[in-house]
């Protein structure tokens, strides 16, 4: 027991000297990784932490950045929203990182926003989100609603002839805002009130019998029906199982999901789900050389050929390369210089095109609609001809349709109201 204690103490001493040594070392550029490694969100975020470690390692192999090596600083905010803010502060103030890559849920992003504003640092946020936000210190590399939700609805309307809509989501900010936008959009397209059914369920909902049977009833009104699902993470597995068991086939009532990717399907037998859809900006099945290289690198890094890649990983890939390029362009890692330099930076994405950072701190992305295959992968059945510019403020919501965002010099405003001509119209 005693020797154990000594060992522990020794280990503790070693770690603290290592941290101390690192902090004193000015030859590295530090990159913060703020993803939950425990708690409910660990299921999705751990992968992103690994993806970031891989990207940093690869950059170091290429000679680092500005002649210095990159060093990853990993913290665990444990799926605890207030802890995200504390850990972000720790990364910036204590560890002195120059940029942070992290967050998954909208509530965790909202929790760290004031910290990044106050300490003037950079956050790259890799997940699709509800929009209605544009902050000077944050770069949104995931999809805004117009890069995911709206094209998906268009696809169902035009290709599948859907006339009746079920908007099903988990009860929190992303589904609620997205569904508000979609409802306004559908009504603008002439869909009647009674042809839209909106349904919310708690996090981790596992008893889907009633809702699946409601969907079945709703779908038997003689019009082609589809489900637009913003159901989050874990709750999807029992939802799809219930759908499959209740015999709802994709040919009859297709489900298009915005939160179901390769990673989520890994826990499912996808045989009965073939044909259900997902809308993303990247699928692992994308048939390009750069994607094949990325997948090979990922498998080599993680040491497991079975691990899949997904859309938020691509967002980190794009965001990280944009940051690297902006730092090289600015010649410094200083936040203000990077914020000025990064607008207009264009890097290759994994689907064979290029993504550019726009003045509203969102990026351009292609939109892909994929059908689930029996091997747990998606097959692209439709894609936009070019890339779509992420729109921070939705054109279909009353409060936000007059707002634009432009962080370049004269305007420098995240919510400029074009009607009143003033910065700070409404919203955040």
């Amino acid at each position, binding site marked *: 027991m005693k020797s154990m204690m000594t060992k522990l103490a020794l280990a503790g001493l070693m770690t603290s000297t290592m941290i101390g040594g690192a902090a004193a070392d000015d030859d590295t550029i530090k990159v913060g990784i703020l993803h939950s490694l425990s708690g409910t969100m*660990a299921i999705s975020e751990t992968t992103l932490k690994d993806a970031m470690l891989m990207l940093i390692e690869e950059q170091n192999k290429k000679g680092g950045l500005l002649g210095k090596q990159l060093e990853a600083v990993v913290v665990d905010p444990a799926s605890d929203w207030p802890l995200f803010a504390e850990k972000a502060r720790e990364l910036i103030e204590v560890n002195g990182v120059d940029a942070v890559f992290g967050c998954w849920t909208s509530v965790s992003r909202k929790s760290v926003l004031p910290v990044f504003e106050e300490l003037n640092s950079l956050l790259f946020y890799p997940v699709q989100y509800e929009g209605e936000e544009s902050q000077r210190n944050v770069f949104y590399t995931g999809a805004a609603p117009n890069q995911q939700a709206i094209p998906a609805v268009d696809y169902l309307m035009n290709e599948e002839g859907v006339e009746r809509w079920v908007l099903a989501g988990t009860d929190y900010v992303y589904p609620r805002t997205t569904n508000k936008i979609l409802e306004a959009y559908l009504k603008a397209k002439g869909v009647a009130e009674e042809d839209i059914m909106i349904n919310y369920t708690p996090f981790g909902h596992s*008893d889907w*019998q009633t809702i699946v049977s409601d969907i079945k009833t709703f779908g038997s009104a*003689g019009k082609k029906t589809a489900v637009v699902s913003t159901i989050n993470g874990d709750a999807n*597995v029992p939802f799809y*199982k219930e759908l499959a068991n209740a015999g709802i086939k994709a040919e009859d009532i297709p489900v298009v999901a915005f939160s179901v990717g390769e990673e989520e399907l890994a*826990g499912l037998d996808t045989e009965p789900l073939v044909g259900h859809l997902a809308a993303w900006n990247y699928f692992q099945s994308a048939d390009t050389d750069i994607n094949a290289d990325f997948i090979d690198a990922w498998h080599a890094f993680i040491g497991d050929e079975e691990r899949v890649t997904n859309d938020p990983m691509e967002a980190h890939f794009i965001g990280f390369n944009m940051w690297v390029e902006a730092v090289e362009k600015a010649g410094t890692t200083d936040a203000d210089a990077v914020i000025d330099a990064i607008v207009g930076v264009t890097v290759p994405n994994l689907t064979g095109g290029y993504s550019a950072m726009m003045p509203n701190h969102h990026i351009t992305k292609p939109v892909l609609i994929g059908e689930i295959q029996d091997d747990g992968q998606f*097959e692209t059945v439709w894609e936009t001809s070019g890339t779509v510019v992420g729109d921070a403020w939705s054109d279909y919501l009353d409060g936000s349709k007059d707002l634009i965002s432009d962080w370049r010099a004269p305007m420098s405003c995240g919510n400029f109201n074009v009607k009143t001509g003033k910065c700070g119209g409404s919203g955040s």
Partner: protein
Amino acid sequence: MSLLKPLLILFSLLLVGVLPAAAQSDPEALRPLINNLADGNYDETQRQIEEIAATGNAAAAPALEALGEGDLYFRKSDGMVFIAVREGKIYQLTDPLTLEAAGEAGRRDVKKIRVNNRLRRVIRSALGSLTLMAPDPGVRMAAAEAIFTARDPDGIEALDIALDAETDDNVRRVMQQARAAAVLNSDLGPEEKITAVGTLSDMGNRQALSLLLSVQSTLDPDVQAAAADAISKIEQSIAAWDAAQNIWFGISLGSVLLLAAIGLAITFGVMGVINMAHGEMVMIGAYVTFVVQEIIRTSAPGLFEVSLFIALPLAFLTSGLIGVAIERGVIRWLYGRPLETLLATWGISLILQQAVRTIFGPTNQEVGNPDWMSGAFELGQMTITYNRMWIVVFALLVFAGLMLVLKKTPFGLYTRAVTQNRRMAASMGIRTPWIDALTFGLGSGIAGIAGVALSQIDNVSPNLGQSYIIDSFMVVVFGGVGNLWGTLVGAMTLGVVNKFLEPYAGAVLGKIFVLVFIILFIQKRPRGLFALKGRAVEA
């Protein structure tokens, strides 16, 4: 190629047109049409499928079926189309017409013919018209159902021929329904249509309702009136069945609650230990199922159908042993100190979760449903899924088994003696510490087998247990601490109440209402539904 294809089509159409008899008997006539599937976008593929269907040649059925399932590939070198099954890095090829083996091909030599939902629908209706005369009644039934969904007026002729030849009554009924659907969509006279409405009205389910609603506006006034009658009749019968369906949903939810709570009813209800790690015992049971299935998948795939039965005893033992270890290692030092027990077991739950996360990774693990747990059957207008039904049966079996153990075995007798009067039981020579450990192990083991069942409906991740712990405590407290019958009635009541609230209040509010209801109930009856009476309560 672009010139060649129309020529080929023309040629094959001529063949079919001139020599229909020859085309019927000679599957090779289909070859050029099938090979044509190899190129073009979705629209062209759709036209080609329709052409194949128009030949009426049943030999095309296997190829179309494979296309729908995404198993149809073409060889890049010569554009020949094959049914291909992947085996590791290579594909085994099968000729789509003769169904003979046709060698193998590497991953890059063949390319899949892509289909989407629209094409799957086209394929389904094409297959319907091609397989109406198949020798297997199951296939004929599926064909008739496909025509019902497609409502294609062109199918009437084929159906009439098939109806004349049909011998199986069930298939005949479905064919008549399919014919009615097609008739309503055609431009036949009102008499035919009124008969069709009658057929659908007798059918009386959601499919019929959906069909009637969609064609209602296109009908003549007379037929429209008949359709309106049929619709209101069907809606009435569905409303009645909906109530029954709701009760079933409630019982099914109740059985899940019962499974999750029944182990806790022993550790908390009988022993009085507030065990926050109870959910993790359920989670471990689910992971045992996963491990068992993994081993079966790699070494004995034939056993997959019985994997759950193999997992049950293993899950019981694993969770039970961990339970005994927890009791011996931690809880026994904390008897009589509920707050410390609560904190310590909560800590254990976090340790177990993180341990599972470290060993298996944070992502969901795939636990497959055996065939007998997949799908659903119709009871009247109710859809009952097999997995839910078996879980109800299983929950009741577990409950009965546990009752038997506690009431009829010496171990059960000791357990009851110890919980009712520890000191007297000890004086009688019962080794109370071991009874404590074994009872705790029993409760944990039951939680483990609950995990086997829950792995079939929920996702297997380290968080699995967390979502059940609150519900489990709710059930035990509501039912009455220390009473197994209370747990049964409590679980079923909460399940049914929840399901009756959900359609009106939504899932989120429904859950809140149930919580409020329980709080008020506990205010009125602090000891739950079935309170224990007598001296045991004081002890």
